């Protein structure tokens, strides 16, 4: 039998929804932009700034006269760091609000929970978060950076700078596991050696035993993919044991929760990270963006990082595509996005890669100096090479899968 779950459900719901869908998505009236992010609960250190920049993006679009003469209406849902609420709001956005696009999700768990809903109800979906790569979905645009963009750059950089022996610490979930695999691969590719890999549940706050193991292993550097509020303790305890002066740390996760401000200047000094955006990015668009943001939210505004800036740029990419397509209709907008659509935002030029529906983007390596990042090196137009290994939507558009669920085996990478 060839009747897959997806096609069956999609077909069935298309019949069930046919009538309301045509009424609901009428061409007059407002264009509906739904955002589902965690504004409360443990993930709010990521979600709260993303909500602010999303609001700013929609205000900017409307201030410039809307899209094709129509106003854009922003509907915000707070998923309260709860996967179950993500599914509920996704269903509500797609089947109830009849959103023209939904920008949602911070953790991969939330993305995987809601992606099928948007596929089922044919609702254009953006995921504007840095993640482990591997989503291959025609309906889903993943604009955040992936390991081949950041890890691939930062690992050789710090190995040249500090040495070849590496110790990896990472958060114990799929993002951390897969990122740690990429780290091991790039360490090996650059002629280095991984002395140890250790994973931490997200609520661990005592890192003493691990710090001792690191002291025993004597690596040249530590690479961290630790995530969330509790893991901030690692950097503090590492510094308390005097280690930050002996064995430096590089990271691909330090900074998206603005961790550099949660530890003291001495503790964070010299830590190196790689993202597609830092506040220190030097271009006029970024300068103007930050000025307008400060004017909007006051001097106490949150520090901008890849997640919050990409939320803004993701919304803008979509808006540009709606303008190019002349309609907010899903199929036309997807076609316009894959044309491919570009947008020059605070992080530089972001372009959709039609092979994967990911983004070609700039990558920056930066160092923490007095609770701020200073850029050391920039790389322009980095492709999502990891996802490109496994995904080709040009050849096979009818896809809706997360290919790295199994780790990197899907990409033929063995460690």
């Amino acid at each position, binding site marked *: 039998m060839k009747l897959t779950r997806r096609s069956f459900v999609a077909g069935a719901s298309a019949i069930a929804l046919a009538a309301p869908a045509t009424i609901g998505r009428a061409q007059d009236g407002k264009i509906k932009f739904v955002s589902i992010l965690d504004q409360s609960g443990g993930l709010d250190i990521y979600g709260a700034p993303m909500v602010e920049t999303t609001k700013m993006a929609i205000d900017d679009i409307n201030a410039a006269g809307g899209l094709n003469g129509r106003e854009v209406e922003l509907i915000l849902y707070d998923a309260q760091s709860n996967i179950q609420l993500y*599914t509920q709001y996704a269903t509500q956005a797609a089947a109830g609000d009849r959103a023209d696009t939904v920008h949602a999700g911070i953790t991969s768990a939330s993305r995987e929970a809601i992606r099928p*809903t948007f596929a089922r109800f044919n609702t254009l979906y953006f995921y504007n978060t840095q993640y482990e790569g591997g989503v291959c979905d025609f309906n889903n645009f993943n604009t955040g950076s992936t390991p081949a963009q950041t890890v691939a750059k930062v690992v050789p950089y710090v190995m040249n700078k500090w040495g070849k022996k590496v110790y990896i610490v990472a958060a*114990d979930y799929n993002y951390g596991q897969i990122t740690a695999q990429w780290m091991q691969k790039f360490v090996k590719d650059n002629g280095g050696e991984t002395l140890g890999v250790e994973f931490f549940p997200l609520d661990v706050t005592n890192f003493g035993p691990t710090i001792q193991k690191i002291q025993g292993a004597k690596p040249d550097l530590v690479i961290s993919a630790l995530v969330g509020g509790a893991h901030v303790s690692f950097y503090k305890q590492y510094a308390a044991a005097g280690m930050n002066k002996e064995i430096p740390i590089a990271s691909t996760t330090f900074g998206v929760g603005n961790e550099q401000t949660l530890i003291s200047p001495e503790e964070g000094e010299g830590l190196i990270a790689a993202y597609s955006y830092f506040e220190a990015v030097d271009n006029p668009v970024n300068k103007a963006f930050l000025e307008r943001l400060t004017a909007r939210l006051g001097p106490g505004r949150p520090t901008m990082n890849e997640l919050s800036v990409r939320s803004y740029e993701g919304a803008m990419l979509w808006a540009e595509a709606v303008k190019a397509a002349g309609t907010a209709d899903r199929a036309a907008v997807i076609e316009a996005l894959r044309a491919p659509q570009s947008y020059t935002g605070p992080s530089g030029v972001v372009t959709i890669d039609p092979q994967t529906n990911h983004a070609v983007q700039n990558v920056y390596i930066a160092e923490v100096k007095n609770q701020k990042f200073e850029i050391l090196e920039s790389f322009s137009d980095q492709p999502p090479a990891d996802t490109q290994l496994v995904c080709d939507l040009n050849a096979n558009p009818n896809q809706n899968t997360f290919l790295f669920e199994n780790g990197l085996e899907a990409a033929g990478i063995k460690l």
Partner: protein
Amino acid sequence: MGGSLRELRPTLVWALIGVIFTLFAPSVLQLFTIINLTTAIALAVLALSLALVWGYGGILCFGQVAFFGLGAYAYTIGAINFGGSTWAILVAVMVASAFAAALGYFIFYGRVSDVYLGVITLTVTLILYSLIRRTSGPEYKIGNALLGGFNGVSSPPLNAPWDARAILFPEQVFYVAMAALIILYVFVGWLVTTHFGRVCVAIRENETRAELLGYDTRLYKLGIFTIGAGVAAIGGVLFCNGVGRVTPDVFSLYNAALTIIWVIVGGRGTLIGPIGATFGLFYLTASLGGQSVFNNNLVLGIILILFVLLVPKGVAPTLIDWTRRRSRPAGRERRRRRARPEGGA
């Protein structure tokens, strides 16, 4: 054996209201509400199971979500491996009940009770939480099903019995969920009027006295604990159908505490109370997420605190007291001396 029909009457009235709601809801409510209601119904089944175990069995199980989550995981893994949901549901109920029986044996025959029992069940839940979150590598696989760690596993939808190709639409899953809730509600309502149920209530009121009367209290507690786990597992099956995915979050402290809160808010010693409270709090958290004026934690916290102070017994017992007082003000004193309403609702 079995309670008289008179005692079951309130239960059957509520069940009838449920049936009427089920029949008319899809034509009145929007599709997304119907789909999301499946999740609420699943949680209501979980609340029902704790209402039985705690409200009638007197067992303060802080880890009822353990059985709920095990049910959800067992169903998902089973359905992926069997390619259909029929056997998976049975497996889910059996896994959760067997686990509860083993844990219950460990607890009740070790004479652990009171708050210590609460802590053991909570600790078991947290162990499951830690372990299942650890399974994010490709090596953690049961048959064809990856466990997926923190990200969880996507759950295959229910299908018609024995026909794996007849996958149910979300609306149909709603009917199945409502049917399950109503049937389980009537079943539990009946169970507490049986001899078994009465002995359990007696043990709740005074364990020593029940023991001196010759009942093996350990066995009765084990029985009601295991049945409660089976009911919770069905809730788990419905839950992963409503959400479309099962993640380790089902075992989290937050959800463990939330289950207790539904029963406290609804009222211990009733069944319809916790079910109603679940729907109420579900609606509340869902609608809070749509506003961004106040922090959601702030609003929910204030509501819960005011609730404890103003409605100390829980909604259902308060309402029952209130209606009785209004209807027969003269007999107030006599009724006050009576224990909690037994077959009340």
